């Protein structure tokens, strides 16, 4: 019971409390700053190992999918190849094994196997995925942006004004009015600086309060779901 519940709760309490206390002290308060410093270093290392955890998870999940021949199992093969191949290039390059020298481009400008993969496979694929958004946004705007009620109308008008205000064409639309060239841009900036900022602040303050209260629940041991006890 001590190892499964009380010890993790104590460690969580200390890991949560130390950074909070350290925030209020200067560098001279070594008693607080030294353990906080150590905790931050551990966090960087743990974050690195968390990636390994993610890799193991992805490999396990996709191997299971291929074994069961589940829907779209062919894609899992490509996913695993995409994980193993550049991962191997990166690892071998980092340890300078054979021709896999380095992970950055070489001093003469020629790419290492890993940087070649990043520049000519990974980057174009990522950019392609994100670029597809433009097509889906246009399609979704056509089907979903309707003047159904007052709220939807305000949202639609604000969206159209901001979209126009973000392009030179919008400025040209009112250029025939004296001083009109800047009118739409100025109105767009007003929208962003005032109604938008007010709403964003509400969201940010709400999210921050939520995060603070959840953190406090975890630090004080009220929230214990992360211990995985309910699975037993």
């Amino acid at each position: 019971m001590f190892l499964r519940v009380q010890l993790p709760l104590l460690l969580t309490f200390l890991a949560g409390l130390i950074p909070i206390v350290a925030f209020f002290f200067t560098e001279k308060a070594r008693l607080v700053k030294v353990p906080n410093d150590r905790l931050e270093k551990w966090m960087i290392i743990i974050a690195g190992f968390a990636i390994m955890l993610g890799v193991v998870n992805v490999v396990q999940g996709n191997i299971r999918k291929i074994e069961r021949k589940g829907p779209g199992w062919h894609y899992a093969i490509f996913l695993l190849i995409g994980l193993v191949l550049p991962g191997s290039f990166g690892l071998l390059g980092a340890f300078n094994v054979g021709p896999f020298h380095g992970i950055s481009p070489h001093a003469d400008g020629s790419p290492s196997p890993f940087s070649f993969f990043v520049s000519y496979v990974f980057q174009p694929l990522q950019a392609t995925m994100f670029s597809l958004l433009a097509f889906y946004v246009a399609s979704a705007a056509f089907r979903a942006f309707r003047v159904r009620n007052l709220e939807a109308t305000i949202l639609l008008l604000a969206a159209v004004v901001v979209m126009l205000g973000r392009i030179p064409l919008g400025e040209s639309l009112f250029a025939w009015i004296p001083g009109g060239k800047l009118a739409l841009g100025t109105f767009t900036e007003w929208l962003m600086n005032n109604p938008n900022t007010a709403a964003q602040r509400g969201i940010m303050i709400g999210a921050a309060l939520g995060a603070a209260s959840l953190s406090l629940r975890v630090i004080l041991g009220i929230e214990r779901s992360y211990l995985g006890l309910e699975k037993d």
Partner: protein
Amino acid sequence: MAKIKEGGLSTALQQLDRRWIFLLVAVGAILPILFPIGLSVTVTPPVRDLFDRIESLTPDDVVMVSFDYGPTTKPENGPMAAAVLRHCLARRVKVVVLALFPIGGGAMATEELDRVAAEFPTLRYGTDFVNLGYKDGGQASMKQMGEDIARVFPSDSRGTPLSRLPLMQKVRNYRDIKLVVSLATGIIGDWWINLINAQFGTPVAVGCTAVSAPKFYAYYDSHQMIGLLGGLKGASEYERLLLDAYPQVKPVYDNPMIFNAMRGMDVQTIIHAIIIGFIIIGNVAYFLGRSRAARV
């Protein structure tokens, strides 16, 4: 035609095959790249503020440029990264580059810095600019750099210990940095403001994607950040200011083989116009359908 007669124009429009929309968007994106329009942009205050802040720096000052984006948002973040780096190097302001974004941030930093630095052959790596590379750990890494950058980055992206780089001998932590510019997608830009500006008082500016820009206006308005480049529009405004102040960079922006935000604005203009056009058509179809239903 038969469908239009049977269900009316509204039904035909509402059931429009989305592949037509995709085709129009594709044509709208490709044509301005092949045949640039060259529309001019008006500079907004958040962009001018960042430009003016870098203009106020001297060659002894150091700017930290954090690459907190990956290839997904390169078309938006890339031009602003290039413009900010080009501005700093044109003014001979020292630059320390790093990356905190795990999926391709390091590659973005190396690519942009190498490309822009090549335009300034008199400047030396290690003395005028440094690439620290990528480090995992997000907030923890950022906070640790407040004590000592070398603790987080013992060596640069080429494996050279920081102690052997003349520039890094003068830069120990944020106290030696005059400005942090985070080119961000996602939450890392917020961290620079919430942690580094709040805790260490270092001035921060963010160059973000257009979808992230609304939230950063709250920070800009409360002076937690000194400037904001919002999406491709912000990047194109910065390029405009840079071109006006430093005509020597014009050949780079005139090179048709190098993508820049001003050229990208042509595409954005056409795509926004197409989206607005489809919103209008969609609503016309919606109202036609409603009035037809009311008649029946």
